[in-house]
């Protein structure tokens, strides 16, 4: 079979720390080439070299049999390589079509921008992706993370590229969009496009990839035909040892009600939401994209204004005037939009972890010693892989940024924590750590609202699950009745009315 990309001895160092070592592979034309590995293994670094975002410290590249140097993203695009990056690379003040054509604007004969053509092409791309609900004129900042992800995908396929790299494209997507994406991949593949697919969701890798490469600590471990490697074996090679496939044991709490939401509505987003959260309970929220789960979390946290309804805490109404009120009342929120609202990429690890809880360290002056101490604790607890405690977050791999974000939301010592896609971009091993940790919180009497698009973890983790659709709660399932089918019935409207 024809080889489209060949690498030889590719290595990358950041300030003389080697994060990628001696990668020599051949990627075949028209295949779906999977890359897996733990957080910080070097997956993103490797593909960023192919996409011209990084220069390798050593090694050579061939494209189509010719030795090439890819000095910048324009070079990459020039030879037909496009990238769907792990972190969104969209200009939030511009609208959808402007982002898709950024730097490649279509121009009329008279020199003016051909907005009509760009908008109609954008419409076509979005409908190909089955997300016609996104308006080409919508501003990026008004989109949900899942919609942003779909725009990134549209952007990558807008120009016929021959080599398409997807760095964890499905972390934000529910199964419906994942299916759309997989259909797209099949279609592209049929047209001879080569795809590099990075994911921590090994089932997806097993299903869509033709071969899979495993990286560990920057080293090449193996490259295997997908037929010859099972999911357990993939996990084992990533981690270097056997992994117990478990969710921690559930201990359903029948404690008293701690948070009670009554007839909460936000115009156009939430309608008549009512539910109770008990002490020590892990309460799941399932639903498709746009169901309103994140909006609900933001409303409870006082980040959005409710138009009517009541939120009460241990029987007393909760007054949310400023963002601090919810945190002060013992609530905490882990945002699904890591770089958009979770962490500050130009701040170091320590300053991020203590940002929300800074009052605890400033009495009245910030004690750097205490901050560092606490950060070290989290770095150990979640095995966060960092060059240093003072490394800026932009120098961390995506999964490790996610862990910092989680540490940040826990550091306020909440009584109730809302975690929105907590394991986004986290590797199989660390996921288990986080599950155990969350269950530990619940056992210690902390109530958890668990929002996730991954049904497997909703089912594995939650004591009770509420399903939302179009801003309403349409169903409730107790732990024993949880199954993917049952949840999807409600999420898609087969059950539950409306």
């Amino acid at each position, binding site marked *: 079979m024809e080889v489209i990309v060949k690498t030889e001895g590719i290595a990358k160092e*950041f*300030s003389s720390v080697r994060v990628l070592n001696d990668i020599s592979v051949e990627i075949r034309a028209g295949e779906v080439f999977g890359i897996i590995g733990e957080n910080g293994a070097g997956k993103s670094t490797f593909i960023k070299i192919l996409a011209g*975002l*990084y*220069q390798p410290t050593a090694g050579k590249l061939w494209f189509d049999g010719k030795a090439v140097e890819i000095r910048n993203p324009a070079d990459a695009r020039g030879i037909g390589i496009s990238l769907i990056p792990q972190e969104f690379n969209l200009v939030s003040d511009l609208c959808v079509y402007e982002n898709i054509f950024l730097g490649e604007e279509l121009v009329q004969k008279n020199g003016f921008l051909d907005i009509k053509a760009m908008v109609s092409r954008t419409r076509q791309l979005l409908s190909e992706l089955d997300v016609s609900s996104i308006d080409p004129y919508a501003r990026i900042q008004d989109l949900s993370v899942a919609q942003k992800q779909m725009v990134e995908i549209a952007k990558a396929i807008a120009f016929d590229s021959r080599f398409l790299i997807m760095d964890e494209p499905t972390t934000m997507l529910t199964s419906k969009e994942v299916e759309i994406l997989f259909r797209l991949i099949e279609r592209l593949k049929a047209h001879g496009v080569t795809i590099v697919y990075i994911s921590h969701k090994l089932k997806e890798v097993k299903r869509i990839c033709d071969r899979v490469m495993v990286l560990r600590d920057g080293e090449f471990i193996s490259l295997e035909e997908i037929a010859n490697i099972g999911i357990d074996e993939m996990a084992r090679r990533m981690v270097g040892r056997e992994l117990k496939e478990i969710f921690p044991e559930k201990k359903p709490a029948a404690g008293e009600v701690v948070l009670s939401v009554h007839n909460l509505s936000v115009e156009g987003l939430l309608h008549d939401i009512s539910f109770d959260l008990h002490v020590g309970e892990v309460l799941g929220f399932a639903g498709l994209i746009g169901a309103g789960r994140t909006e609900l979390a933001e409303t409870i946290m006082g*980040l959005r204004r409710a138009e009517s309804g009541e939120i009460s805490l241990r029987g007393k109404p909760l007054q949310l005037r*400023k*963002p*601090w009120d*919810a*945190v002060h009342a013992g609530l905490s*929120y882990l*945002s699904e939009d890591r770089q*958009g*609202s*979770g*962490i*500050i*990429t*130009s*701040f170091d690890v320590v*300053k991020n972890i203590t*940002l*929300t809880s*800074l*009052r605890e360290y*400033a009495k*009245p*002056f*910030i004690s750097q010693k205490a901050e560092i101490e606490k950060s*070290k604790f989290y*770095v150990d607890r979640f*095995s966060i*892989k*960092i*060059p*240093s*405690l*003072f*490394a800026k977050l*932009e*120098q961390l791999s995506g999964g490790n940024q996610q862990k910092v974000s989680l540490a*940040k939301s826990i550091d306020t010592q909440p009584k109730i924590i809302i975690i929105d896609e907590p394991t986004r971009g986290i590797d199989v091993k660390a996921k288990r750590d986080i599950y155990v940790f969350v269950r530990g919180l619940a056992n210690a009497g902390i109530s958890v609202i668990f929002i996730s698009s991954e049904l497997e973890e909703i089912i594995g983790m939650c004591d009770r699950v509420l399903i939302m659709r179009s801003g309403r709660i349409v169903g409730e399932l107790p732990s024993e009745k949880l199954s993917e089918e049952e949840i999807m019935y409600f999420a898609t409207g087969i059950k539950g009315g409306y």
Partner: protein
Amino acid sequence: MAVSIPKKLSLDKYGPLIALVALVIVSTILYPRFIEIRNLLNILRQVSYTGIIALGMTFVIISGGIDLSVGSMTALAGAFAILTLNAVTQGLMMFSPGWLGTLLSILAAAAVSIVIGLAAGFVNGFLVTKGRIAPFIVTLGTMAIFRSLTLYIGKAGEFRSVSSSYGDMGMSVILGIPLPVWIFFILAALLSFVLNRTKFGRYVCAVGSNEKVARYSAINVDKVRLISYVIVGLMVGITAVLISARLNSLSSTNAGKDYEMDAIAAVVIGGTAMTGGKGSVWGSVIGAMILGIINNMLNMLGVSPYLQGLVKGIVIIGAVSIQRGWFNNGRTEK
């Protein structure tokens, strides 16, 4: 897992200091009398007026804003300082109160100047945060407003102090160091501590880096912004007292002219990013000193005063382009 401290010395942090040292060396070689204590103190005194404003401006710029109104604000606050001074002095005259009266009148002048500064800063901050108007526009507007008020009150003439003690204070030297220099350095130490060791300081950086993350981290973004404008107002109030005392008068047309330029330039040369998010108070002190030394050298070397703006402009643009270069290096490796 090993967690190490990076060894790399960052140009980001020490660039302005290195530039200052280099400038001092070059100046000494070009003009040996440059390094005399008298000359150095003179430079420090000259830069301390806009330097103090630059300290406050550092906060505003880190928080992602800008304040163009500081020059006119200085004139307005200084005008009120002298009016208050004169009123109190004359009011107390019949009691022939001696040194106590002098002290009272100066304190009253200072208090009024500072209150005007705080109020003007509050107006700017309020319009930026609650009015949701771009800082550039708001402070461009208040720049015109403050100047116009000063001109109106002073009938476009001069405010003259009737108290010679006020002028004495402005010229005073303590332990060999001029009063404004003392105040400049004390405030720098104080505000540097505020920036690095208090919640507010951390919040200013957070708001300037990513407003949305700051909001989601339960930070009251508007309050942080507002306070940074109030801080700059406070600094302006202090400078207004010092400069009006120094001259023992204040010209309604010329007072505070180009202060915004000098203050912003000092901040930028000191390494604070115009895009917000990070910066350093001592950096701004160094920036102010660099500007002062350049002015001083141009004078000593007999360069036409008309060309001094040209040199200043080149230095500002140069400083920013060097920063941009470092920044970009960082980015290609991101």
